[in-house]
């Protein structure tokens, strides 16, 4: 019998019990919807994280001396030293970090102070929204100036601009000379919650001349791994330790993060896949009930000349339609959910097309695999026995 006839036949039977057909599909709808939504969201998250990190400049290397290994770096001598002994880097800058309280009028906000030098703007790939950045003379003359992140500006000044105002950082008055542009997205949250000052000014506020880390720029992204190795070597040699510093390049962070997000995406997809499997079992369950209920119909069809294959096809098509229509509805809902979610989180990238193809294909396979057993049962029924029932 032609497959078209089977489909018409299956459709008629399904239309006999619309509510049941819908409830049967529900498992597949939820399964496919979940797979598509979760994979799409996972891929959007990966893409968003990746692009944000790439925006920071792929040549960025962060060197954090390990105090536990006896490694301590000081400004300014060690920043100059590093650049000198590692020819693979084109620039470096200190980061002197501490937790501080900032005040403006009655507003008070706890944030991170970072003392640094002019090179850090370019090394970190940041941009200014207003004003200017720290310049060499600010560092030389220990000027009481600050460049603030957008989060700090918003906390202290609300909707008005902070440029030109004086804020108090741990009691020290600093003139706001610049405001950073947001690093963007969820990943930028920390990068925006910061007050930057000349490293010399930070020394006074924090009462130290040890740097938390040195950031450096490799001459090219090709050379970055080499630069990392060289920095590790000079640090280890200098402090006579195996792990004098943690040296990370942007590439390493990127690949580590994509590994994490990819694993997460797969895991989410896998969990959703299980619900698809449960949906498949639901289809099998209902198809078994259907075959049992329609034993007489099967007997009659056989009595008037349906071959085994025709009966098998009829029930397979029926479960195939259930799973495919369910899959299509699920894909629609899942795609919609993913799009809404991505919009809400400000992520680019819509529905993962590969997840749609995957989920639809999988749901069809589920329908056929789980429909197979009931359909085989139907096709093997003895016509007389079947006709006698009911």
């Amino acid at each position, binding site marked *: *019998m032609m497959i078209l006839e089977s489909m018409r036949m299956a459709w008629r039977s399904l239309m006999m019990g619309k509510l049941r057909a819908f409830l049967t599909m529900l498992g597949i709808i939820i399964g496919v919807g979940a797979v598509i939504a979760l994979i799409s969201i996972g891929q959007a998250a990966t893409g968003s994280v990746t692009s944000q990190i790439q925006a920071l400049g792929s040549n960025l290397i962060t060197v954090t001396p390990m105090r536990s290994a006896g490694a301590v770096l000081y400004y300014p001598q060690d920043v100059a030293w590093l650049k000198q002994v590692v020819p693979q880097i084109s620039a470096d800058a200190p980061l002197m970090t501490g937790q501080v309280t900032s005040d403006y009028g009655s507003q008070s906000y706890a944030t991170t102070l970072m003392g640094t030098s002019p090179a850090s703007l370019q090394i970190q790939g940041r941009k200014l929204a207003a004003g200017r950045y720290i310049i060499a003379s600010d560092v030389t003359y220990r000027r009481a100036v600050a460049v603030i992140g957008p989060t700090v500006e918003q906390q202290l000044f609300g909707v008005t601009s902070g440029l030109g105002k004086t804020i108090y950082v741990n009691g020290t008055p600093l003139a706001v000379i610049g405001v950073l542009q947001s690093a963007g997205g969820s990943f930028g949250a920390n990068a925006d919650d910061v007050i930057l000052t000349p490293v010399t000014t930070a020394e006074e506020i924090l009462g130290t001349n040890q740097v938390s880390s040195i950031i450096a720029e490799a001459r090219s992204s090709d050379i970055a791994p080499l630069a990392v190795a060289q920095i590790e070597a000079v640090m280890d040699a200098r402090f006579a330790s195996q792990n004098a510093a943690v040296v990370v390049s942007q590439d390493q962070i990127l690949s580590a993060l994509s590994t994490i997000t990819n694993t997460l995406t797969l895991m989410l997809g896998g969990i959703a896949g299980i619900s698809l499997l449960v949906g498949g079992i639901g289809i099998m369950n209902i198809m078994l009930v259907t075959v049992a209920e329609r034993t007489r119909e099967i007997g009659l069809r056989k*009595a008037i000349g349906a071959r085994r294959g025709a009966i098998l096809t009829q029930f397979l098509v029926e479960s195939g339609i259930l799973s495919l229509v369910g899959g299509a509805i699920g894909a629609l809902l899942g795609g919609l959910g993913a799009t809404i979610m991505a919009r809400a989180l400000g992520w680019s990238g819509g529905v993962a097309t590969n997840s749609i193809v995957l989920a639809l294909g999988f749901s069809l396979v589920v329908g056929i695999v789980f429909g197979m057993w009931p359909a085989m049962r139907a096709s093997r029924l003895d016509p007389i026995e079947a006709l006698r029932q009911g």
Partner: protein
Amino acid sequence: MADVIRVESLKRIYRMGDVEVAALQGLDFAIPEGQMVAIMGPSGSGKSTLLNLLGCLDRPSAGRYFLGGEEVGRKSDDALADVRNRRIGFVFQNYNLLPQLTALENVELPLVYRGLGRTQRRKRAEDALAAVGLAERRHHRPLELSGGQQQRVSVARALAGEPDVILADEPTGNLDSTSGEEVLRLFLALHKSGRTIVIVTHDEDVALHTERIVRLRDGRVVADDPVPASSRHTLGEVQEL
């Protein structure tokens, strides 16, 4: 005339565990083309068992069955399905129409399994429905039809495939006398147009409308007599179908 149906020492033994029920204990008879035969006998005498064998729904335990000169007893399942599809028309006591299909679609069903194209199928099904007087009811579903009408649809379904034989197991058993008579009239009309018909019935009156009565008891033929024209019951003028 040639025999459409011929059985030789036909046996059917049901096995249920250690118990064996010999439902048919060796039957020999032949039915020539165009004959209308009634099979009678008390309950449990093997009438339905015999009709199932003749209809290729079941296989004999022993003996031979020739349908149109060809032995069918040993064919494969699918080959038997094709025989049922092309050469047998079944009418059941309880109609056995599919509730999700319209009258017309029910009549089409055997032709679907035959692989006939849609327009051809529809034409033949419409003709068959018209022949049983249900042309206007073709888009009704079985539950919207009376018992008698449903049985007429099932006769149309048996008819649409243009089978060699029409087999009916107590076709009037569920019907009141008026609808029963309508259905019987259909069989008589089919007979008049030359078809071979085997009817299992408990109703002596129905049997007396046929040409020959085969009586079974305990799986054996105990009587096989023509119905003499003098005692034949009639329904007045019957149109050919």
